């Protein structure tokens, strides 16, 4: 026990030292930082090794490390996630906690960058109280944390990680994603577009300049080319993440005169783009697809007919969501507390916490009611099928998630002062996913128009 306590203190001290070094990246300090990383990692491993016996007893509280963006332009997407976590955790604790153990969350702001996020993860993992990490929002941070989760053997639930690269090797034991990934998310848009606008000839893309933007462009383009080979990509723009001004990009899109403009910009970037593009006629001259458009429906006046979706099934007004009293209650409570309805990042976070709760229940049923170790918890997540607020999250043997994909277009609604999603389709989660271990892009290239014809059509989800 003494070793554990000393290890925690020293690991925390080393992590804080590492944060201090972030400002100075000179060679000697950089070397020192690696040394500190190594030492902190070794000590954190020591803590993990020293705690399995204690983990069998019910703790006084269950700590969760929750990673999201709470500052910077990405906070427009990250804060709904934090809000939802606050709400769900309050609800869980009001009902006595998870299996009788109250939950306490420690939030980590991902805006500090990967080095800071890694240091915070290591610090939290070093404390045995924190049994699960709900991390992260950014695909880049998810990729950075995944090896650490495996090394420290901490169950880590990617509440938003979209990149298909996260679990591609199929070897992960402790990293889970109770969501779809970039493959079904963006193949869904290609299929919906071709159903709605079969004569499309030219497409322009404007995505953020990092893995999520580039992956989405690759997948969307590959799916379009497979299903309609004569489609031409006439412009591909990748503005810097957090860019406030898109006027030049908008001019470039206007000069390209594409039939379709596709974008997976998000957060404040998406708001800025919509506000700047709308008065300049982009939404009238082209069919616009905003893959994360649902997040701005309540904040920005989007015109009718824009193809939008929720990168999964997390639409709080979907027929399934409206039929679930828990979801209706959650949406109303969220609106009452935060002033707007839960956008899909909020639903994703809520679903991720429901997933964690279900894993505890399953793990305790399996081990005779004892409080599970981290390994037992991870074991319970593998292959699980959990009813969420908006559907089902199924975990495959490779730990990747199968979640349905909802896509539609913006329409006016008399009941709401903002546009909602209409003419919806709900694709089954497994119908747009390659088999575990299969190269996603190779799988997409095998798709044929017949494949799309077998899928449900726009307007079929009512």
């Amino acid at each position, binding site marked *: 026990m003494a070793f554990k306590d000393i290890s925690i203190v020293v690991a925390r001290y080393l992590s804080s030292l590492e944060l201090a070094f972030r400002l100075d990246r000179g060679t000697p300090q950089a070397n020192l930082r690696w040394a500190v990383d190594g030492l902190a990692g070794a000590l954190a491993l020591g803590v993990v090794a020293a705690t399995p016996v204690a983990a069998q007893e019910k703790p006084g509280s269950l700590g969760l490390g929750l990673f999201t963006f*709470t*500052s*910077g*332009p990405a*906070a*427009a997407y990250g*804060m709904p996630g934090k809000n939802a976590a606050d709400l769900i955790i309050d609800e869980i604790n009001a009902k006595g906690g998870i299996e009788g153990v109250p939950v306490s969350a420690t939030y980590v702001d991902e*805006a500090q960058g990967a080095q800071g996020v890694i240091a915070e993860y290591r610090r939290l993992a070093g404390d045995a109280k924190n049994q699960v990490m709900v991390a992260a929002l950014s695909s880049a941070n998810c990729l950075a944390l995944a090896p650490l989760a495996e090394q420290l053997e901490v169950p880590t639930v990617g509440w938003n990680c979209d990149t298909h690269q996260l679990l591609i090797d199929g070897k992960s034991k402790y990293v889970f994603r109770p969501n779809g990934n970039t493959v079904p998310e963006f193949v869904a848009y290609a299929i919906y577009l071709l159903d709605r606008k079969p004569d499309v000839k030219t497409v322009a893309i404007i995505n953020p*300049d990092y893995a999520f933007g580039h992956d989405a462009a690759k997948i969307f383009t590959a799916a379009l080319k497979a299903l309609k080979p004569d489609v031409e990509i006439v*412009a*591909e*723009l*990748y*503005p*810097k993440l*957090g860019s*406030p*001004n*898109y*006027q*030049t*990009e908008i*001019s*470039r899109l*206007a*000069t390209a005169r594409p039939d379709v403009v596709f974008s997976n910009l998000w957060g*404040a970037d998406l*708001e*800025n783009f919509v*506000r*700047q593009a709308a*008065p*300049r*006629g982009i939404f009238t001259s082209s069919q616009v697809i905003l893959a994360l458009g649902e997040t701005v429906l309540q904040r920005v006046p989007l015109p009718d007919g824009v193809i939008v979706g929720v990168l999964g099934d997390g639409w709080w007004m979907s027929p399934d969501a409206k039929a679930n009293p828990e979801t209706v209650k959650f949406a109303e409570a969220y609106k009452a507390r935060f002033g707007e309805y839960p956008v899909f990042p909020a639903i994703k976070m809520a679903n991720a916490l429901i997933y964690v709760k279900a894993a505890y229940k399953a793990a305790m049923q399996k081990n005779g009611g004892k409080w599970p170790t981290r390994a037992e918890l991870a074991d319970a997540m593998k292959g699980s099928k959990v009813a969420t607020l908006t559907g089902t999250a199924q975990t495959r043997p490779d730990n990747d998630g199968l979640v349905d994909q909802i896509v539609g277009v913006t329409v006016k609604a008399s009941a709401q002062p903002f546009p909602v999603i209409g003419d919806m389709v709900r694709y089954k989660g497994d119908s747009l996913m390659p088999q575990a271990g299969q190269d996603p892009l190779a799988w997409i290239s095998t798709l044929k128009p017949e494949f799309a014809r077998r899928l449900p059509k726009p307007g079929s989800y009512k």
Partner: protein
Amino acid sequence: MLTAIIPLLLDSLASAALIFFAAVGLTLVFSVLRVLNVAHGSLYSIGGYVAASICLFVASRQLNSYLSFAALLFSAVFVAAIFGPLIERGLVRWTYGKSEAVQILITFGLFLILEDLQRLIFGVQSFYEDAPMRLLGTSSIGGVVYLNYQIVLIGMALLVVIGLRLLINHTRLGRLITAVVTDREMAQSIGIDTNRIFILAFSLGVFLAALGGALATPTSGIAPGLGADTMVLAFAVAAIGGLGQIEGAAVASLIVGLARVLAIYLAPSLDAVAPYAAMLAVLLIRPYGLFGSVTARRI
């Protein structure tokens, strides 16, 4: 051919105008005080936040929408009047004559404080108020729809260049500033109140930064982190033009604007590096910038 060149030209000018507003205050302050103010970007974003707040107030009280134009200018004056004397007297004056490292460390500390202050006051969500942009409408030029506000910005940037040149060359204050810039000790010895000149010049720099932020708000959002991005870009422009050179900042803004726009049109993957590639190219040929020189400085 013309239809391809017009959008390139207009976008370059519009982009250069915004970049110029971000950079000109930085270069002016350096020319007079010989201090590289790392907190300049924060003052730019504070100008944006204040302008957006006042415009939102105007909208919420259903006052005449055209008041939002006055609000943009007023917010810059307000920020300059509050922060200019406060920062110069409270912090910057202690760095005069100190090494550049000390000046940069102190203004960097101020930058961190101002960034956190913005988060505390305005929160972490982005701010946006586009009333001035909507009021002016749009025009179709070369087959592309432009905001008339973008064209107004180009004109405003031109007015600022002319206005600053008139101020420096044809007013008493301008001649006093020139005297201080040319020889600080000599100016002091003939009775010029250099402290007053420093306060005024620094406040003018803050005004220009805040004006840049305020004028940018109607076309782009303001969010935490904008200050850092602005500062880096402003420094690149100041380095290309020559630190302390107002016309240099104008020409450098055009170069950076053109480089960015060309990258977006022709090689989008180079968009982010284009301004710094331009800086590198200029500094390799002229290490003191286009308008800078080793021995003499002018404004």
